[in-house]
């Protein structure tokens, strides 16, 4: 019989109780268990970063965590970045403005990664941003729009603070 566990996990502020097969990755659980398909699986071996979500505020690969390991923890996915009324976050807005996405497949992982990164590094250089997203592969954009978006948000945050 499949090995399963009951877990309780808070996702984007909403708590969920679920029975999960223990071999299920966090990414698959979010996508197919909770229907939060914004988190994308691009490689399932930890390199592409498309599946990045925040667990207790820290950016991690959801393909390299088991769903059962989030029992009692808080997860934020791309669906949790905008305001409740749908207003995009400043980073999302900046991606839009700087053409930081084309097909949109890497985008959720870029957004979650950079959201955590900019929180910890509010005044990054271009080099810092490029290294921060070196664990997120984008095949479409050549990264430039993404880097510009991150730098733009950081600049605005600096001014605001």
């Amino acid at each position, binding site marked *: 019989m499949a090995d399963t566990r009951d877990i309780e996990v808070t996702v984007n502020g909403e708590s969920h109780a679920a029975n999960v097969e223990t*071999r299920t990755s966090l990414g698959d659980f979010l996508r*197919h268990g909770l229907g939060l398909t914004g988190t*994308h699986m*691009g490689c*399932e071996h930890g390199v592409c970063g498309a599946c990045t979500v925040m667990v207790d505020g820290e950016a991690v690969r959801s393909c390299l965590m088991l769903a059962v390991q989030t029992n009692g923890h808080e997860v934020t996915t791309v669906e949790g970045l905008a305001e409740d009324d749908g207003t995009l976050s400043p980073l999302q807005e900046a991606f839009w403005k700087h053409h930081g996405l084309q097909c949109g497949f890497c985008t959720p992982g870029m957004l979650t990664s950079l959201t955590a990164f900019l929180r910890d590094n509010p005044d990054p250089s271009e080099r810092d941003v490029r290294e921060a997203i070196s664990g997120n*592969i984008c095949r479409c954009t050549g990264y*430039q729009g993404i880097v510009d978006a991150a730098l733009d948000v950081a600049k605005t945050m600096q001014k605001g603070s």
Partner: protein
Amino acid sequence: MGVRYLGAEVQRMEDPRLLAGHGRYVDDITMEGMLHAAFLRAPMAHAKIRSIDSSRATELLGVHRVITHADLGAKYSHRMNQLYPAPVIEQDKTQYPLAKDEVCYVGETVAVVVADSRAIAEDALALIEVDYEALPAVVNIRTALDDDAPLAHADLSSNLMGKMRSSFGDIEDSFEKADHVFSAAFMQHRGGCHSMETRGVIARDDPWGDGLTLWTSAQSPYLIRRALATWLDESEERVRVIAPDVGGGFGPKAGFYPEEIAISLAARIMKCPVKWIEDRREHFVSTTTQRDQHWDLEVACTAEGKILGLRGKVTHENGAYVPYGILLPNSSLTPLPGAYSIPAIDVSVDIVFTNTVPNSPVRGAGRPCGIYAVERMVQVVSRELGIDPAEVRRRNYVRSDQMPYETGAKLRGGAPCIYDSGDYEALLEKALDLSDYNSFKERQAAARAEGRYLGIGVSSCIEDTGMGPYEGTTVRVESSGKVAVRTGAASQGQGHHTMIAMIVAGNLGVKPEDILFESADTAKFSHGIGTIGSRVAANVGPSAHDAASQVREKALKLAAEVLEASEADLDIEDGLVRVNGAPDLSISLGELAVKLTPMSAMRVPTGFDPVLEATSFDGSSGAPIACGSNVAEVEVDPGTGEVKVLRYSVAHDCGVMINPMVVHGQIVGGVVHGIGNALFERMIYDDQGQPLTMNYGEYLLPLASEMPRVDVTHMETPSPLNSLGVKGAGEGGTIPAAAAIVAAIENALEEFSVEIDYYPVDPQYLTELIDKGKVQAAE
């Protein structure tokens, strides 16, 4: 009036949804009662299948069925069709959806398991027992045509799939007249697709309802509809193919795959929807790629560096099957004179089978290879004659006063390749300016004084874009005043929605937000070709423009009657038709639409067809030729062989730009893809055809940390071939990149006389060349 959005930097309309995580890619779609599939794939590159025993797999809890070739029955026992038949294909080989008795590359589909979940389906794969008899595999195209080479398929007469040739002008005369003849040999490797979304298919078959429906992550839904219907021997009307959001395509998603048949049949057999999502390991072994080409070329030139002729031979690796005809070798030959006026060319290609993944175009198709070859030879001339690379180019460009310029080469469809417009020399000067080319020597000397090796490389390209025959658009005004716009062309991130909305909105006089855009669903638009070869802007663009114009005309004509005004006094703004000078007199497009779609027993105004709608297939009357000049500046670390791209400058001309922001994104993304080809991406096989680079730690895609900022500037020379003056922009970044990078590396290492004869240029290889150069210098 009219085209007020054209040329504006409009933020993309598809973005808010994607940014919020609400895209709908194939794997995001679920259906009641849907089962999940996994494929058993060939573990060796060449083998006979003696027997398959799936009984243990079938017994596993949660497994519904294991399907092999034998289970498909006589009706479905044939090979896949050739998508692009061509007379030069001497030996044609297409796959069975599930292998029959022979497998010819690692990754070939052998069986499909249908189960409650993907995980269980994968559990079952391990329980299927296949008895293989290993056969020798052919991998190296340099020896594949030798008499004693193993054959890629047991029943081939040789590994030669076919031969092609591009030949024009008096080549003998060119070489006789020449002051110099130089030769060069080099290998070009191009990597795989690696769209961040892998392939994926959901099939649902409802014989008493709406027939067979396929959701597939694809670039050409109509091609799949026809190929699938043909293979099944059923009506195209009963097959519907939908490409939902697609996470990148780059060429390999433009084909038709065995999995698309196998999953359709699985859904038919199981009588429920079946989903298969390719995983990344499968992508490495089953999604078509480009691979190796060996070029042996000779260039004839005058003492001043004017190129008179180019001749030689290419060996092209085809992989194990021919799903795509000869598209790749063909597009490698078409661009052969490059941006230059070369009077004579004679280059032939041997297309060779190997036991590796079948070939398909990858961003640029063969064009990056053809352009690389020309640019290499220009580089050779520059080096051998000691003429600055920019100057050699100036001396050879097709001049703007020569346009339209027929090169002598042939396009894919056999039509002559004609350069329609452009000023290649002016474009080069722009690129040189942007890159501070003239002060490079000082930068180089200063760096050298610190022990650093800087180099600069130039390359120019042309790109035949917008190939026909057509793409279409329907524009229909709804009673609400919203405008439904439908087209066949699928988007994989290029922003078609925004582009077409801009064209239609500007032309019709509505807000882009009022446009309801739908594409890539064969049930919603009658026919289309696909998003390949930078062809959408130059085909869908004019059709959208024309359809909107027709609707506008119809609306104005009707409004003139209703408002009792002259058509000439009317204008449409924000969906409202107004009479100039009479601000109170107006009628909305929605109201006009209602008049043309009255209730039953009412009358349609006389002289009008019902429905405020028009469809157009207006496109380009030939292939608009885009062009670009790139300058790469690199630093090489002789201690490690590492190459850093410090600066990258692009001057590009794709005619009139519909949305410069989107064009910019296409160029930058394309350049990075090209730098990946030049420096990083290498799919390695061992001599038995086992792939060795099977994950993203081993197969190196370009990352943000290694990529330079790309500076882009534009010229806009309108194409005379379509109503908008546009040319394609999707591949122009990729095509010239490898040539610029390789030239820059050689320039950096000039004191070691480094001559690079393959790419991707890896650091070990460079250190070997440096050491060789040092030894030679010492002797």
